[in-house]
């Protein structure tokens, strides 16, 4: 079981309020991702849940029981740190067994659980090495191994993939998702990378300056961002945000249209523009088109084989059903 409830949780370091009072419920077995720009308080929030920081106000409940004053070790949560925080002088085996040893399990049970974790994480051949002799991805797996042997109520991950190279990151992303499917344990995952959030989460919590901007499934956030911040943060490449007369034409202060919801034509369309830079990814191509009457270039996604020349004149037409409208406060107009 791992249902975590934050009730008006507030955190201040001295006079600086990093987390204003915040309510959030994380259901048992859910994969929740906290996402937001650097410095918005994601790690702080995770550390509050872990018990590594004391809350300034409010209550944290784990499975209905008040855990606000419970020390970290007693909360039944396991954490994977950004730096992995492996114990450098212990072998992989000892690292993974450490929480079991601290819990006073007998040697046979320790060995059994370590072997099982190593099996799951492909670490069996490395059990006698030290962390210093492993690659980044392997260290990451040891850190995860150390977390899973405890059979915690929930896993906490703090930007676990940020120290890995791009290819490994994709692989580990899948492995962690796979692990979640298998263990069905609550996972709270912190990242500043919206791609990780979109690909892994059951539920995304978008944070800005300690505030929750929106909570929802990846597709909820993609389809109906609650405000301009979420609209700009979720989705890659970013949603095009257009103000001025064009927005006024839709009875809004700002309208947003995603690059994939604009069609391009050489002959006719709503907005006339000039093709600027293009990014060819193979599967897709992104064009940056500067349109008459619109500030800043618009990003447009087309198929990978489409080629347009730099400086060519084109017409863009947004899909009317996919236009997001926002009022003068940046809030979505239903």
């Amino acid at each position, binding site marked *: 079981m791992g249902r975590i409830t934050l009730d008006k949780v507030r955190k201040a370091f001295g006079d600086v309020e990093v987390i204003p009072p915040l309510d959030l419920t994380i259901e048992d077995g859910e994969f929740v991702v906290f996402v937001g720009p650097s410095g918005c308080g994601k790690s702080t929030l995770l550390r509050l849940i872990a018990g590594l920081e004391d809350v300034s106000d409010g209550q944290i409940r784990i499975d209905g029981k008040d855990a606000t004053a419970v020390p970290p*070790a007693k909360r039944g949560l396991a954490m994977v740190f950004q730096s992995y925080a492996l114990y450098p*002088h212990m072998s992989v085996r000892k690292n993974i067994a*450490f929480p079991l040893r*601290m819990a006073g399990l007998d040697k046979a049970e320790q060995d059994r659980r370590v072997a099982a974790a190593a099996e799951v994480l492909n670490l069996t051949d490395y059990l006698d090495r030290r962390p210093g002799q492993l690659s980044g991805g392997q260290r990451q797996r040891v850190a995860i191994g150390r977390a899973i042997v405890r059979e915690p109520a929930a896993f906490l991950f703090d930007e676990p993939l940020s120290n890995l190279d791009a290819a490994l990151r994709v692989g580990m992303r899948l492995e962690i998702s796979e692990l979640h499917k298998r263990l069905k344990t609550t996972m709270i995952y912190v990242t500043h990378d919206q791609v990780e959030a979109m690909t892994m989460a059951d539920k995304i919590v978008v944070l800005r300056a300690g505030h929750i901007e929106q909570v929802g499934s990846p597709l909820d956030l993609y389809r109906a961002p609650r405000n301009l911040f979420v609209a700009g943060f979720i989705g890659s490449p970013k949603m095009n945000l257009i103000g001025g007369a064009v927005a006024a034409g839709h009875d809004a202060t700002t309208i947003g249209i995603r690059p994939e919801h604009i069609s391009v034509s050489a002959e006719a369309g709503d907005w006339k523009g000039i093709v600027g830079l293009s990014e060819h990814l193979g599967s897709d191509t992104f064009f940056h088109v500067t349109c008459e009457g619109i500030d800043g270039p618009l990003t447009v996604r087309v198929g990978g084989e489409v080629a347009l020349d730099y400086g060519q004149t084109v017409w863009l037409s947004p899909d009317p059903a996919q236009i997001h409208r926002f009022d003068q406060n940046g809030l979505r107009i239903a």
Partner: protein
Amino acid sequence: MATQHARSAARVMMAPAVILLLGWMLVPLTMTLWFSFTRYLPMRGDSIERGLDWVGFENYVRFIGSSSFWPSVQATLLIVGGVLVITVILGVLLAILLDQPFWGQGIVRILVIAPFFVMPTVSALVWKNMMMDPVNGMLAHLWRFLGMTPVSWLSDASVQSIILIVSWQWLPFATLILLTAIQSLDREQLEAAEMDGAPVMARFWHIVLPHLGRAITIVVLIQTIFLLSIFAEIFVTTGGSFGTRTLTYLIFQRVVDSQNIGLGSAGGVYAIILANIVAIFLMRIVGKNLDR
């Protein structure tokens, strides 16, 4: 331009330093070896100009056969070992203490380091006359205040007293090295251990202490080198009596008090051998600790 040219130029430039250092070591070493095989008693008129009589291993046999030899080796090891144990244990504790944030941290750190800047002779004199004097010493006052009979530290607990004085001098060094080591410990490791269910003592034992392993070895190694040759502290306080005659002190007595340079030199060679045995022994442990 790392050419042949540059390399030979570098060699030429380094040569003076290398030659100076070699001479600095080799000349006294050779002379000690030479004297140790000769009869050299200046009071009897022996001198290098007149030529010294070659006596083979006689000095070596006499030095080791003397009743003071084994006790002096014992005293040396006892004092070195005692100081090492005290400075390492207290050094670790002090380092942990000084690593905590507290008011006046800067000043306290300087105060802790201060004894290191006091000359050995001065500190020994201060300890002897101010602290340990059985009549006027601070400790005597304290003992009387507590209703006990003051202790004649330097005669009744002489070895312990020397260990105390020398530890006081070397504690700052150990603390300083261990403090920098503790500061380099990754906080997340401690937090991870905390989440893994390790209470404070277990965190110290399983995380902090192994992290300090290297620094402790370095402290032990460097201190041993200097402690094997402590002299002033003994000269000023007990003059080598009451079981505080170390090997170094015994050699000094043979050369200066008995005016027997040959015998003293043989003792010097034994001291070199002892130092090397200790060094090899230590290097083994260090090697194990430094290799990872």
